């Protein structure tokens, strides 16, 4: 008897609540109990964080603020520069994320106030958050002479989209015999092997279409990522080290540092020399995106110091910084690392909203690079966090493709590179 009474009581209460919801406007009631997470930046880091927070706990309201309608992926955009891939294959939209219940707002975030916990967007609208995830990518530091208008004449193509197309066009229009000049950036920068992959693929293009031209890399550094694998591949494919090399690399120690550019005369200057061409790719030094800087999330280094177990900012509680903008010591500034950081951060955000202990993180990075369309190489690592050494994540396995791999393995890695891209994009936007 008593059991029966209780059961019918629950039923009644349930019914009443349902009526209340229907009459009172469900969202208002629901929202007042919901946690709100804002994510700024819908790229490799931000889109993943938004999706994985929703996958872990669909009661959390997630708003993604992304300035562009479409995202153009930098990974594999060097193929577009070299003319063997269409930019359309690099383009992704946000319907998949909407399908996971993420509210997507296509506007620029203009202000973050970590004290009142609000974000303001270009139209003036302000959102309140419980937790904020920031993944806005990079901004450039200046090189003398490299102003806004110079970026059109000497494209960086270090943010994919119109810049990529512009550089591809200039390469195509370049006279057979002119050099393709690349001004490489100093450390740390987005995608450490990226400039050297680009140089390789441009050399591949030149070999076929402009055999009298070559790639000239002016570099402030004396060494770069996957050095042995790149120079090994260059020797094999592009005569590197001989008089007829299609690639010439001038390291910092030999005067490779560019100090000034002049876009009007299409010239770049080092301390001792000047170089000119109709096709110059200037990749400037980098720092965390402006929005992170203006929110006070950066330190003197120009990057955002974070707790590597959670990616929470060391400067502002409740704000997490992932992707290229963070100073994620031990991890490279890559799309795969941003993906991994997004997942670690998502788990930490969900745990903190539930008042649970910090989940133990696990991270992976892999960067594939191409030396020609049939010649892929990679670097991979699995990382752990050691609470006794919190300043850096440490790798527990990994390494480079073997230096003596046969051609068919290089070809397989080239195929896996494209499939990696499709998979990580389906993870990010699917």
């Amino acid at each position, binding site marked *: 008897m008593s059991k029966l009474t209780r059961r019918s009581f629950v039923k009644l209460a349930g019914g009443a609540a349902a009526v209340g919801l229907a009459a009172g406007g469900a969202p208002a009631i629901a929202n007042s109990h919901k946690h709100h997470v804002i994510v700024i930046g819908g790229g490799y880091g931000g889109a993943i964080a938004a999706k994985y927070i929703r996958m872990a706990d669909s009661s959390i309201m997630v708003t993604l603020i992304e300035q562009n309608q479409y995202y153009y992926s930098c990974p594999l955009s060097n193929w577009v520069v070299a003319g063997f891939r269409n930019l359309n294959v690099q383009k*992704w939209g946000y319907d998949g994320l909407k399908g996971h219940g993420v509210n997507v707002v296509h506007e620029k975030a203009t202000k973050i106030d970590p004290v009142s916990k609000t974000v303001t967007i270009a139209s003036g609208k302000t959102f309140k958050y419980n937790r904020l995830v920031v993944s806005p990518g990079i901004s450039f530091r200046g090189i003398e002479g490299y102003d806004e208008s110079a970026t059109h004449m000497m494209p960086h193509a270090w943010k994919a989209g119109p810049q990529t197309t512009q550089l591809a066009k200039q390469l195509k229009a370049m006279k057979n015999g002119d050099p393709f000049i690349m001004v490489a950036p100093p450390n740390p920068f987005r995608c450490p092997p990226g400039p050297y992959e680009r140089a390789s693929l441009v050399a591949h293009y030149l070999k076929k279409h402009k055999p009298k031209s070559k790639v000239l890399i002016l570099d402030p550094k004396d060494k770069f990522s996957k050095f042995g694998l790149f120079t090994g591949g260059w020797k094999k494919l592009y005569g590197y080290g001989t008089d007829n090399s299609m690639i010439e690399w001038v390291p910092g120690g030999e005067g490779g540092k560019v100090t000034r550019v002049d876009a009007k005369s299409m010239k770049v200057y080092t301390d001792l020399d000047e170089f000119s061409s109709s096709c110059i790719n200037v990749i400037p030094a980098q720092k965390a995106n402006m929005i992170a800087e203006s929110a006070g999330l950066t330190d003197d280094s120009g990057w955002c110091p974070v707790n590597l177990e959670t990616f929470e900012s060391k400067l502002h509680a409740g704000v997490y910084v992932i992707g290229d903008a963070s100073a994620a010591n031990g991890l490279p500034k890559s799309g795969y690392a941003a993906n991994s950081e997004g*997942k670690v951060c998502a788990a930490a955000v969900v745990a903190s909203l539930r008042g649970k202990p910090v*989940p133990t993180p*696990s991270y*992976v990075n892999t960067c594939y690079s191409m030396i020609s369309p049939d010649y892929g190489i990679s670097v991979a690592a699995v990382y752990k966090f050691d609470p006794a050494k919190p300043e850096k994540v440490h790798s527990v396995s*990994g390494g480079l493709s073997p230096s003596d791999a046969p051609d068919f393995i290089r070809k*397989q890695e080239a*195929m896996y590179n*494209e499939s990696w891209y499709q998979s990580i994009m*389906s993870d990010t936007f699917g």
Partner: protein
Amino acid sequence: MQRRKIHMLVLASGFLAGGMMFGSSNAEAGATAEMLANTCAGCHGTNGQSGGPAMPTISGMPAEYMNSIMAAFKSGERPSTIMGRIAKGYDAKETALIAKFFAKQAWKSAESAPQSKNRTLINPKLASTGGKLVKKAKCGKCHEDDGMTQDEDTPRMAGQWVDYLLFKMQDLKNEHLAIPQPKKMAKRINKLSAFELEAIAHFYASKK
């Protein structure tokens, strides 16, 4: 025996106290299955449902099979371009957690990966040729139900990517790679031409 037990108990409570002292950190507990498995998704897709035609879908793979494959990648017994480097990053306990996680995920056929661009689409004519070849070669002796069945030592092939299946069979045939495989399968696959392998890849991929 007795003493050892007591010693372990003391140790265990020591850990607990440590955990409480550090308040929020959970490091001793180790990473969850989900946390570990999510690191694979950059290549194998969300929950192991691959978005790229050369990367195998691994969702729904029986845990025993994944455990043994990961161990073989780790030891080098099974050659790989990259999995050896990755598999070494997880100890046996972590690998077991990962394997359990993927075993629980639903299989989704490659055809249903809506976002993917640049893949080989299934050619029905080739697939039907492949069906006949598979029957003739008696692949179904082990790959039952048109490759739908999977167990602790045989992977699922129905609904896998055309491209992956083709690369994989080329690899299985490649003596430089010496991929461990049943002798009876090696004998059968070695007899097949490049065109026949392609048809078989389309056949298995077309089954969902």
